[in-house]
């Protein structure tokens, strides 16, 4: 007994102070500045994975796959615009700026989206001729910074998207760091090369919904009431924000939940501000329904859309379309393991690379470096995006047919059940195996 080694418990690292937290503290202590990064929230929050479709049964007849039609065409902006946007698929490409993305990446997105019959969106920094030229339907963002905003481009747009907020940072502005400011980016933004370019968090010439109504009037007058006007909001108070956007005269509301990507924002903002995408939809749909505007003012949902199942679930909960940012970049080649050695050199690994603001993207997508961006072949990358969009559409159609729907927009909440109590409460869908919607019905 005397010689026996005393038994010890295995060392325990605290849950509160795990390795990542400790590395965060060391980083903050050594640099004195918060972490800025791209991408969306990395923490797990209740999401579409926590919902399931029920499929058909005795009381619901499925449609024959490959034989019976399940339509996917949608129209956006039918409320006031003379020329609403007609799309073949209910998946659009979200606003991502030239500046954040290379010219090649923007071209690839235009090519892929157009081939798949959908729209793409400019971003903070204005409209480039490549993007306009390669996009059959282009939405022009109207942002607080107004970088590159001009009436000639406005008149070339197929729709205008007034950006009030983004899911990654509701209430936050933006920052394009000096190292990404090439001559061209600087010129488009009327600023000297190499300096940090801040994007304001509030619009310079309006505040609040009453002003927004007048701003929308002005934009309609400039564009002759021809093109739709979208209002994009971050997932903060979706019920009130949707209500106010509709009252201000929006044709389309774009709602971006907290998992939504960004080009560059403080990590603390991305992870701690805003509501999960899943929790944003029903309050927004309720606002539309209460004003008699559901399907009249269209709702585009974004923030963590990855698969055809996500698309189908978003539509079933009441959205008219979805929008993708991060997923589109991955389709082009972002975070591809084939660049692993280079990711390692940057101190990261494929799948985790998020320093999109630093301009050193090995895949040539989130950079302005001519050598890196030349790695992306816009035709090939565009083809990949087209394939991906088509796969998602086929998947959503497959689910819709199995639920007996001849149009993808006929999917409804009744087609779903929830896997967790949280998801049931957020999406207002009964917990699987029960009739229980927490907060709505008795157990």
């Amino acid at each position, binding site marked *: 007994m005397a010689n026996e080694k005393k038994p010890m418990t295995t060392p325990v690292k605290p849950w509160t102070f795990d390795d990542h937290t400790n590395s965060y503290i060391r980083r903050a202590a050594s640099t004195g500045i918060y972490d800025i990064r791209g991408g969306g929230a990395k923490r797990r929050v209740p999401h579409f994975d926590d919902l399931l479709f029920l499929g058909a049964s005795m009381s619901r007849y499925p449609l024959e796959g490959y034989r019976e039609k399940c339509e996917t065409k949608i129209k956006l902006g039918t409320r006031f615009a003379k020329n609403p946007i007609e799309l073949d698929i209910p998946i659009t490409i979200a606003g991502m700026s030239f500046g954040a993305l290379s010219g090649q990446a923007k071209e690839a997105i235009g090519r892929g989206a157009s081939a798949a019959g959908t729209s793409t969106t400019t971003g903070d920094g204005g409209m480039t001729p490549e993007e306009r030229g390669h996009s059959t339907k282009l939405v022009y963002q109207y942002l607080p910074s*107004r970088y590159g905003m001009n009436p000639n481009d406005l008149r070339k747009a197929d729709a205008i998207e007034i950006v009030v907020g983004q899911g990654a940072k509701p209430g936050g502005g933006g920052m394009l760091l000096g190292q990404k400011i090439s001559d061209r980016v600087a010129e488009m933004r009327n600023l000297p090369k190499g300096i940090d370019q801040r994007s304001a968090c509030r619009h310079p010439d*309006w505040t609040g919904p009453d002003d927004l109504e007048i701003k929308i009037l*002005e934009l309609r*007058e400039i*564009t002759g009431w021809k093109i739709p006007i979208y209002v994009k909001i971050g997932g903060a108070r979706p019920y009130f924000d949707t209500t106010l956007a509709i009252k201000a005269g929006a044709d389309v509301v774009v709602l971006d939940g907290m998992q939504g990507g960004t080009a560059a924002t403080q990590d603390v903002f991305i992870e701690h501000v805003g509501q999960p995408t899943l929790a944003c939809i029903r309050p927004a749909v309720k606002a539309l329904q209460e004003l008699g505007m559901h399907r009249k003012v269209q709702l585009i949902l974004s923030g963590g859309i990855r698969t055809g199942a996500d698309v189908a679930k978003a539509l079933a909960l009441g959205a008219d379309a979805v929008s993708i940012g991060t997923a589109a970049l991955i389709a082009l080649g972002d975070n591809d393991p084939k660049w692993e050695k280079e990711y390692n050199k940057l101190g990261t690994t494929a799948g985790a690379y998020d320093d999109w603001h630093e301009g050193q993207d090995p895949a040539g997508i989130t950079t302005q470096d001519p050598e890196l961006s030349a790695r992306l072949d816009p035709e090939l990358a565009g083809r990949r995006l087209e394939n991906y969009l088509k796969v998602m559409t086929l998947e959503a159609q497959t689910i819709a047919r199995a639920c007996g729907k001849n149009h993808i927009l006929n999917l409804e909440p009744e087609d779903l059940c929830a896997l967790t109590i949280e998801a049931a409460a957020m999406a207002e869908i009964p917990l699987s195996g029960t009739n229980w919607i927490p907060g709505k019905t008795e157990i």
Partner: protein
Amino acid sequence: MEKIDLATSSLRELNERLQQQSEVTNEKQWEVVNPKGAHAIAVGLNAPLELLIKGSTGYYCAGMNQHAQITVQGSVGPGVCENMMSGSVFIEGDASQYAGATGHGGLLTIKGNAASRCGISMKGINIVVHGNIGHMSAFMGQSGNLVVLGNAGDALGDSLYEARLFIRGKVSSLGADCIEKEMRPEHREILQDLLTKSGADANVADFKRYGSARKLYNFDIDNAGDY
């Protein structure tokens, strides 16, 4: 002279007729009567028209103007000439908030006073205010010139980039990273030219120039309190 009466024509008819004029139009002279504070009057014009608005207007008068010369015989609401590209606009009365916001070019002259945030985020426009301007004017101003014959309110030129500010009167306070700068011959030339073009009776020697100290151009933790 073409005349549009907003008592009998709609805003849409007004803007449509003005927007339809091409660069080479013969119908250059236009007059708008009974504006009665309506919003978005004469927005998105894209031809060298001479337009006289007889009365006061609401928000965003002359928004995104290109080429047109517009005179308002009255006062204007918020956001006059927002994002103006070119041309010139003359306001005989006062202007509300955000006058000339994000303007890229052209000349905006305000005979009276301008309220807060005059020239906010300006990107190349020239603005001459014969009276005073309110607080936070030229906030994040990127380029262009703001000339003020009267006084400026608090936090002038906060977070300024490369816009130049020429003030004759008192400045209540300067915003973060805005400092007084030396008036060099090239600045006197710019100022004299703008005074002449905007019909201002003032002496260049009475003005001070303010601009960016450029300390906040690249993030530095030691300046965190100023951001």
